[in-house]
């Protein structure tokens, strides 16, 4: 029976190992939880893992950074090395002293209060400003650190 088990085990092991591809995953920043098809591979850098050819889903998560999801079709090869760059999330305060304005960010978040706190992914964001249902301004704001934005309307010049 023991020999029988060995006979079964060796081909099974070979079938598992053959066709698998060496996988290395690096991230910036380091020490990020890496999930492959929902299974936690540990913290980056991941070295000498194995992956089967086919479609796989990578998920990269770290507190303070935008989570990343990446679908990858792995072709038969000797090795695959992936580098992921995570984008940080910054705490933003948005303030205005102007009355009656409605703000819209990236076409999805809206507010009409004079002060809001937001958590935004670093990078460029589209800001639109409405007054009495009419768009009065549109511009790109760059979020590159935790900070406060103060919005001001452009006052018309009063010439005597």
């Amino acid at each position, binding site marked *: 029976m023991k020999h029988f088990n060995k006979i079964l085990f060796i081909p099974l092991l070979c079938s598992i190992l053959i066709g698998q591809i060496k996988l290395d995953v690096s991230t*910036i920043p380091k020490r990020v939880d890496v999930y492959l098809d929902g299974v936690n591979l540990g913290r980056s850098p991941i070295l000498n893992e194995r992956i089967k050819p086919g479609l796989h889903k990578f998920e990269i998560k770290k507190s303070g950074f935008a989570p990343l999801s990446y679908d990858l079709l792995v072709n038969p*090869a000797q090795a695959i090395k992936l*580098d992921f760059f995570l984008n940080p999330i910054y705490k933003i305060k948005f303030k205005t002293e102007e009355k009656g304005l409605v703000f819209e960010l990236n076409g999805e978040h809206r507010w009409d209060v004079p002060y809001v706190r937001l958590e935004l992914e*670093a990078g460029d964001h589209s800001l639109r*400003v409405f007054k009495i249902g009419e768009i009065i*301004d549109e511009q790109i704001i760059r979020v590159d*650190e935790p900070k*406060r934005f103060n919005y001001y309307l452009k006052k018309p010049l009063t010439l005597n």
Partner: protein
Amino acid sequence: MVRVLLSIFFLNNLFGSSQDPTYLVFNHFDREIPDAEKLLIENFNDSKFEFDASIKDIFSDLDSYDNPASSHMEMIKGLGEQYKVNFILLNKIEHKEDRFILDGLLFNTRSGGLIHRRKINLKHYLNGQINELVMWVGKTLGIQQQEWQENRESILFSDPESISYEKTPMGAAIRSLIAPGWGQAYSDKKVSAGVWFGVEASLSLAFILSYLNYDKSAKGFLSNSVLYNDTDDEKLVAKYRSLAEKDWDNHIIYSRLAIVLASATGTGWVSNSIHAWIFGPRPYTNIYQEWDNSSKSNKG
């Protein structure tokens, strides 16, 4: 018009041995990257470079093939025999708006198969194309320099935890705790700094004067009490009694005043520090309406 630059270089005798692997490298850029060849030679100065622009088909889109890893086997084998190299390295750079895409492929000429592929999609940064190219080529050769990595990381947004500010609200609070108004001055709030310093200086001065008067009255009371006890003269008794009573009253008044002023000074000192923290230096950006206010637009 897409400009194709094919550069071929042989990386021979990488470690001074004729048995080390040799590489044939093709660079395919959609626009000219100044000094690319020169910088590659400089970064891998142990290698021997040659350039040729005769092979273009090898750069066709690999992803359109059913099996990209083995799609060019015969061609790769043929090139390996022709150039007597072990590996072929293909580098392709395409520019799309403010980003560039580097597609790197490393083939083994013995099998003709693809053994490494690197595709990177990054926003432009200073000498980014060259930096990414040398990083990829260096990776295939087992050479990595910290400088290349740091150069790439310079374009990334900072980790929130690693951001350090030159001026902080806590720095302002500590300064104001040491000297009233210093924290406000540190935060470039000169008027506020002057007001806090003036108020605290006045309160402190008033406290010191009150304490000195209290001390003077207390000592005067004691000395007049001694003189009052030591004399039998009727007039002097009345005089010392009057002076001692006056000193007693003054000592009580100045004592109370000193306590009130000390409390006010202490409370003000702490308040000044808290004020410095609340209105301390924090990063902000003022956004002004971009659209012209006078001409109303229905855009959007």
